[in-house]
């Protein structure tokens, strides 16, 4: 009898806690981005930020060591590849300078925003979000630095992602490699618009909505389209075409894109002070 009573008490407690969780879950889910719970979350993150920074500072050598264990083998070949790319990039920069001037003029004529002309805030990547399910990073700037939800995040190499949450001194950035991320893009050679979808960490991105008739070349640059109601301004480099195929009977090409930013080892990023037009 005593055992029975005790297990009933246990079960009551379990039901109580589970129901509380479900209630909070429902409230947060319904409240969307600006509910009261969201401000509780923001406050907690800001309050915890200094402690986190201290711990980060204390443990960064250890974490750096573990983080790079798998990378030693890659470094030598990566170095050679980077040198080669640098040479190519120097040549391209010279060719590009003139085209850039021309393009900016055209963009201005069409009334499109160009990332190069936007104000931006530099930020440091503090950590990966403590989750295995979303590919996000936390940066050390927030609404105090005029950062807001929806702003694009870039490095000098190209597009990183989009701000999905912002508290006073911290923001969360959803990386373009996350399977939930969609970016409106344009293939540089054909000008054809498509949508880039994340494929998970260290995986190439996939491009949707490119019909089989469109010619696509390997190495072709992919940039944000900046089309009306787009989530990003135009002309931010996203990556280069890695492979392309057209399975028989398919309506669209299967295109893989190698992101131009090394999203696994991000350190510094820039948040463009630009929000999508509603």
């Amino acid at each position, binding site marked *: 009898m005593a055992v029975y009573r005790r297990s009933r008490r246990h079960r009551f407690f379990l039901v109580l806690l589970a129901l509380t*969780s479900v209630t909070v879950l429902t409230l947060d889910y319904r409240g969307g981005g600006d509910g009261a719970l969201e401000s509780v979350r923001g406050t907690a993150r800001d309050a915890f930020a200094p402690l986190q920074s201290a711990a980060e500072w204390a443990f960064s050598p250890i974490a750096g060591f573990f983080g790079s264990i798998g990378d030693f083998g890659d470094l030598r070949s990566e170095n050679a590849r980077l040198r080669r790319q640098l040479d190519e990039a120097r040549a391209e920069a010279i060719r590009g300078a003139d085209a850039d001037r021309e393009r900016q003029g055209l963009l201005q004529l069409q009334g499109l925003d160009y990332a190069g002309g936007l104000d931006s805030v530099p930020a440091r990547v503090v950590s990966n979000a403590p989750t295995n399910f979303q590919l996000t990073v936390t940066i050390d700037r927030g609404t105090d630095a005029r950062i807001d939800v929806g702003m694009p995040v870039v490095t000098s190499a190209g597009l990183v992602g989009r701000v999905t949450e912002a508290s006073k001194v911290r923001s969360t950035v959803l990386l373009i490699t996350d399977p939930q991320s969609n970016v409106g893009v344009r293939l540089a050679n054909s000008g054809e618009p498509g949508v880039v979808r994340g494929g998970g960490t260290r995986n190439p991105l996939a491009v949707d909505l490119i019909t089989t008739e469109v010619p696509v070349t390997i190495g072709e640059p992919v940039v944000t389209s900046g089309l009306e109601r787009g989530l990003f301004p135009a002309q931010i480099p996203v990556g280069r075409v890695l492979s392309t195929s057209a399975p028989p009977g398919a309506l669209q090409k299967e295109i893989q894109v190698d992101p131009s930013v090394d999203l696994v080892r991000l350190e510094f990023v820039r948040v463009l002070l630009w929000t999508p037009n509603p």
Partner: protein
Amino acid sequence: MRSDPRLRLPIMFVAALLLQTTVLARIRVFGVMPDFMLLVAVAGGITAGATRGATLGFASGMLIDLFLPTPLGLSALVFTLVGYGVGVANTGVLRSAWYIPVLTAGAASVTGVVLYALVGSMLGERMIDGHLVTIAVVVGLSNAVLAPVAVKFVDWSLGSLKTGAPINS
């Protein structure tokens, strides 16, 4: 350690949260990190039974939810259930062979990850794909390795709050 027993629980939670959000968030195997907050729930169930396992799970889940992009309460719900389940299956095994908590932590962590993905998917998050297998396996193994430490730590934090005789003091 001589400290106010009432402070031990908050200390444990803050330390676990710091560990999870800074150090562990960077140590990733195949892009996956150990889930120490889930392990707190599991360890709670192992050392102190179903009710306290559920309570610790609820608290650690709510805490980590504050730092996640997923809806608030998702981890809390899952960790509550896991802490409770472990407690029901395992009350008192701290006295038994050392590998029992390790195996329990591994199995419970895999269950927790899968449950999290299932509930998350019901809320429209995209969580179930091939990567889920990797996540479950890596979290299961790494949590199993961390289990002895976590069990000691949680056991210490509960101190005199525990029902029955404390084991390590």
